[in-house]
């Protein structure tokens, strides 16, 4: 059987302090409930510089300059142990500052909704024109269009026709609403959707540049963020995927959007693997951009505890799934874990459905998997907010299941956790930490022989949408390629078999 393979992964981070302060829902809710809030007054003093964000060890891990194992050797708090010679460019991706990103939002905006102040536009145009991956991107000419004076921008935002954009505390532009009455096309929705689109475009451009995949070879794109694109008659109509592929020049691709809260990427990767294995498409890219609403989600606790506001990063990724090449790690499509509607909602029921059920199906034990990549949230962000160390909690649950199944002794639980666990290093952007940040490192670790297999786990809180109380979870195994390609029908073999059968028949005939 030919399993599909993981051919490459691209990862993008964007520092977005202005968006954190003005559009993170913790801040917008606080502003509504308590406009004189102490938190809102103190928050600007806790923002970090772009340099500090680049030097932050978990961010360097996300773009591939440090391995997850390397991160675990750096003492915490990581924000007090920066990597001083860190680079914004990484093995799998890049960290981008907010001004360049606002420029990229303008480039990807097809409907002239992003308006920038003249000097700001000229300055980011110059920076993006010198960018090794983004120079020459489709629609770069948008950087010459729609230039505006700051007074005009202020007038539009004062009259609630547009949402203001800030860089380093100054108004530099705005996103206009796309329809007079339609709430699904309001300035706020368009802003969030353009951020998701622009950051996913960046991740796809990084994947193309880092992996060598030809943009015209992509057949299908699956977008799996948590935003909704549409209008008042079809609020989530789509299609982010094609809009992203269009900017990146993927002229032979089509695509669609897949949603399941934070489990979206795991669903999308299983779909991509199935499409490739079935021969429907040869090259599928699964991607997602970042989410502004979640910026600074736990910042109240961070500010209270005297920490930097660490949730200032938008995250994005793009993963290429292709046909078996006999080299790259395979996705075991016969070992896909899924939380069934009837599985139950307790953590035990969820973990059994997504971890042990698929392993049982192919005769593996929990300890046969070298690494598990569940929700890889950075613990330095979640612990101060009372949510604990999320990956560690997942590892303990998996180890506890191994104890219950008699695979390990209870006394060995913590050793088992450290053997298959890793520190979380992804920003708390919902769908972004959900297993996918480890695909790049896992591919390298399998190719270099360091590990044989890893399980990627995505979990989603469907109840947040208030249509069901159900939870969600999907998992799949990535495994070392056995090195062979099944070519299907072998003419020579069939010829030989017929020859042998004829010879046997002749022998038996002559014997009579």
């Amino acid at each position, binding site marked *: 059987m030919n399993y599909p393979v993981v051919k490459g992964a691209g990862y993008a981070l964007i520092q977005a302090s202005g968006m954190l302060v003005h559009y993170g829902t913790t801040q917008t809710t606080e502003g509504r409930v308590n406009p004189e809030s102490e938190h809102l007054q103190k928050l600007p003093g806790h923002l970090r510089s772009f340099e500090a964000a680049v030097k932050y060890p978990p961010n360097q891990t996300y773009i591939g300059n440090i391995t997850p194992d390397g991160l675990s050797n750096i003492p915490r708090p990581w924000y007090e142990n920066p990597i001083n010679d860190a680079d914004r460019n990484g093995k799998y991706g890049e960290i981008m500052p907010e001004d360049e990103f606002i420029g990229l939002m303008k480039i990807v905006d097809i409907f002239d909704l992003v308006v920038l102040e003249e000097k700001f536009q000229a300055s980011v145009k110059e920076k993006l024109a010198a960018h090794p991956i983004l120079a020459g991107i489709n629609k770069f000419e948008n950087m010459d269009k729609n230039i505006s004076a700051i007074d005009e921008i202020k007038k539009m935002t004062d009259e609630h026709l547009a949402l203001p954009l800030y860089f380093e505390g100054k108004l530099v532009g705005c996103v206009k609403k796309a329809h007079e009455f339609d709430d699904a096309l309001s300035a706020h929705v368009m802003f969030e959707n353009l951020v998701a689109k622009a950051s996913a475009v960046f991740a796809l451009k990084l994947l193309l540049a880092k992996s060598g995949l030809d943009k015209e070879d992509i057949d299908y794109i699956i977008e799996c963020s948590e935003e909704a694109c549409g209008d008042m008659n079809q609020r989530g109509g789509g299609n982010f995927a094609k809009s992203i592929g269009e900017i990146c020049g993927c002229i032979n691709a089509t695509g669609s959007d897949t949603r399941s809260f934070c489990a979206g990427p795991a669903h999308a990767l299983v779909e991509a693997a199935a499409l490739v294995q079935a021969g429907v498409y040869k090259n599928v890219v699964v991607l997602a951009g970042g989410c502004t609403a979640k910026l600074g989600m736990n910042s109240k606790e961070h500010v209270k505890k005297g920490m930097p506001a660490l949730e200032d990063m938008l995250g994005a990724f793009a993963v290429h799934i292709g046909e078996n090449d006999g080299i790259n790690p395979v996705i075991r499509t016969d070992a896909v874990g899924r939380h069934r509607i009837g599985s139950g909602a307790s953590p035990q029921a969820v973990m059994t459905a997504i971890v042990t059920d698929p392993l049982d199906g192919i005769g593996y034990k929990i300890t046969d998997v070298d690494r598990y990549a569940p929700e890889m949230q950075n613990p330095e962000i979640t612990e101060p907010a009372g949510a604990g160390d999320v990956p560690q909690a997942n590892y303990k649950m998996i180890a506890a299941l191994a104890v219950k199944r008699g695979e390990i002794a209870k006394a060995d*639980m913590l050793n088992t956790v450290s053997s298959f666990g890793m520190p979380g290093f992804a920003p708390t952007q919902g769908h972004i930490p959900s297993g996918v940040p480890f695909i790049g490192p896992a591919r390298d670790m399998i190719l270099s022989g360091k590990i044989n297999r890893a399980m990627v786990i995505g979990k989603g809180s469907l109840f947040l949408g208030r249509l069901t109380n159900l939870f969600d979870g999907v998992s799949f195994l990535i495994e070392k390629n056995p090195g062979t390609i099944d070519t299907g029908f072998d003419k020579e073999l069939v010829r030989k078999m017929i020859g042998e059968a004829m010879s046997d028949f002749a022998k038996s005939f002559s014997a009579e």
Partner: protein
Amino acid sequence: MDLENQARIKELTEKYGKDDLIVVLGGAEAEASGLAAETVSTGDPTFAGPLSGVSLGLKAYHVFELKDQVNADVYDEQISMMEMVLDIDEIVNEVKTYRK
């Protein structure tokens, strides 16, 4: 504590009264469980939700405290794994604080 849950607990208390009502928590961490217990007894300390400044006086118990009340097979199937994972004493002690 989730703002929607605060609203639901407030509504249930108004409907049934506080005497025959307890809140069962399933939080995975002591601080968050304590925060939830505090919210339903003396009010939302973060002043973010419907229970800001509202003292319902409800008693909250963590599900680990109710082990003897639950069918053993159900407990084993649903909760025994988490018993091995979480710091039960720390969680229970924190939740108890708000019943005094």
